[in-house]
């Protein structure tokens, strides 16, 4: 009994450790990739000084942030000021627990069934992610409030309004996929998209979710406070928004949370709409060659390719679009994206109903 519990715990902790490592490494890559991609798009070189072609830049940034002085502004609420970055970071990392990174395999160790590519396959997977994503707003609002600064407070309040408005669109744009897949579990949703790439939910009959995908991508850009929706940290009017007063490691936490959140929403988008770890063709090439036990590498690589393509889209948007004004942002969310998402639900529901009758 005790050993079984211990073994389960050890397996779970190993998986959690592995996923945390992958996410942190991805964030490190992203910080460099963002500056490089933006540089190339603006006809610059990007960071070149640290290491060959600047590839050691993320480590230099991390060391710099780690050794910076940690300042708590006078009049700040010290308890909440300290807690806010952690509140921002934890919900984001918790969300990765239900992401399926690879095929839905199981194997047994001493009678315990282990799923190697997902930490926990709970049957409300996507709701779990939405629930914790909605908590990330607390870190931003409280951080803004506790700083005792006008710019921070305004940034925090903006972010509260923005995150609530766009979370609604994220939730509603997902509903179409849930109707098609008939499940809330990300593992089952991904399994429903095997075969050719036209089985992916973005193209799948009877109701292609292409509009839902567009609404989802726009809404998550707003939810992660990225350009062109980065009003909570608009530097031309609010200095740096909700983290104006933050420095050193606490600032690094906010930074890490933002990038980890980008990775999370990209993972969710590729799992829901783009087939997750499924290749665009049935099965895998590894199986054709006869190395079926190694096919998981191909599957996880497809997942990585889809996720990184979406992350590239984030950078591309940043290099292309100017920031929206606040009223434009709200009007766009409530009067354009919300009706599209609702119409998509109605159309998908009717289409699936008719399809089942035929």
């Amino acid at each position, binding site marked *: 009994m005790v050993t079984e519990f211990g073994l389960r715990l050890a397996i779970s902790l190993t998986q959690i450790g592995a996923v945390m490592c992958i996410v942190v490494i991805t964030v490190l890559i992203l910080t460099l990739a963002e500056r490089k991609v933006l540089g190339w798009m603006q006809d610059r070189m990007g960071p070149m000084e640290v290491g060959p072609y600047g590839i050691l830049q993320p480590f230099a940034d991390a060391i710099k942030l780690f050794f910076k002085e940690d300042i708590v502004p006078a009049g700040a609420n010290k308890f909440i000021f300290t807690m806010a970055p952690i509140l921002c970071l934890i919900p984001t990392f918790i969300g990765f627990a239900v992401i399926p990174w690879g095929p839905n395999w199981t194997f047994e160790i001493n009678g315990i069934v282990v799923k190697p590519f997902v930490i926990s396959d709970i*049957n409300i997977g996507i709701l779990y992610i939405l629930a914790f994503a909605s908590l990330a707003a*607390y870190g931003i609002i409280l951080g803004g409030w506790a700083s005792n600064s006008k710019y921070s407070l305004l940034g925090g309040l903006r972010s509260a309004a923005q995150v*609530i408005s766009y979370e609604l669109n994220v939730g509603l744009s997902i509903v179409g996929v849930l109707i098609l897949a008939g499940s809330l579990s990300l593992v089952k949703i991904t399994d429903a998209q095997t075969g050719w790439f036209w089985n992916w939910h973005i193209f799948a009959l009877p109701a292609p979710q292409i509009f839902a995908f567009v609404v989802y991508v726009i809404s998550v850009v707003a939810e992660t406070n990225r350009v062109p929706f980065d009003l909570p940290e608009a530097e031309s009017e609010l200095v740096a928004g909700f983290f104006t007063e933050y420095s050193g490691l606490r600032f690094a936490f906010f930074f890490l949370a933002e990038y980890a959140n980008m990775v999370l929403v990209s993972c969710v988008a590729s799992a829901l709409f783009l087939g997750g770890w499924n290749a665009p063709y049935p099965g895998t090439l590894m199986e054709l060659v006869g190395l079926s036990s190694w096919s998981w590498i191909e599957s996880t690589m497809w997942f990585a390719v889809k996720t990184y393509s979406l992350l590239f889209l984030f950078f591309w948007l940043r290099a292309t679009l100017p920031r929206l004004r606040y009223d434009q942002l709200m009007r766009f969310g409530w009067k354009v994206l919300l009706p599209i998402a609702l119409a998509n639900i109605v159309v998908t529901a009717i289409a699936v109903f008719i399809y089942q009758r035929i």
Partner: protein
Amino acid sequence: MSQLIFAYFAGMIIAASILVVALKNPVYSALSLLVMFFHVAGLFVTLHAEFLAAVQIIVYAGAILVLYLFVVMILNVKQDDRYHNQWRIAGFVCIPLMMEAMVLLSGGAETRTAGSQTVLGPSAQAIAPDNTFAIGQTLFSTYLFPFEVASLVLLVAMIGAIVIAKREIGEPDDPSPMGQTKAVE
């Protein structure tokens, strides 16, 4: 073990709810409310109602409480004593509630547990693993009428809120000809 987990969640819910009304700083009150919502969600999970737990966090913690915080910060009430001189009213409300709880716990306990067993119906018990499916099934068959009535009530409330908000913003600086003539006068 399950008793212990229940005791933890119940104890934390009670402690956090007391803190919500007892703390002087409204932001701290909102945060203890957040802690309470989390533990209520935890209770739902121990009852294998994962869907309810997730919805509890999304709706209450994710949306409603953020709006509370929003209002608290806009009003910038630091330590307002006005809301803490209401002991008489609080006592007046509390005593009947306590008595009701006593009655429920002592006399009505047996009938209540017997009733709560059949809330989801016998068909829902058979498909207990998929809680979401069971809730959907009962909500759209047995309880369809109350569900629709509730959504209608919510719609009316929404329209009411929009009407009230529109009047307050629209009148002082009305860009219509009416407003301009008023300004001229």
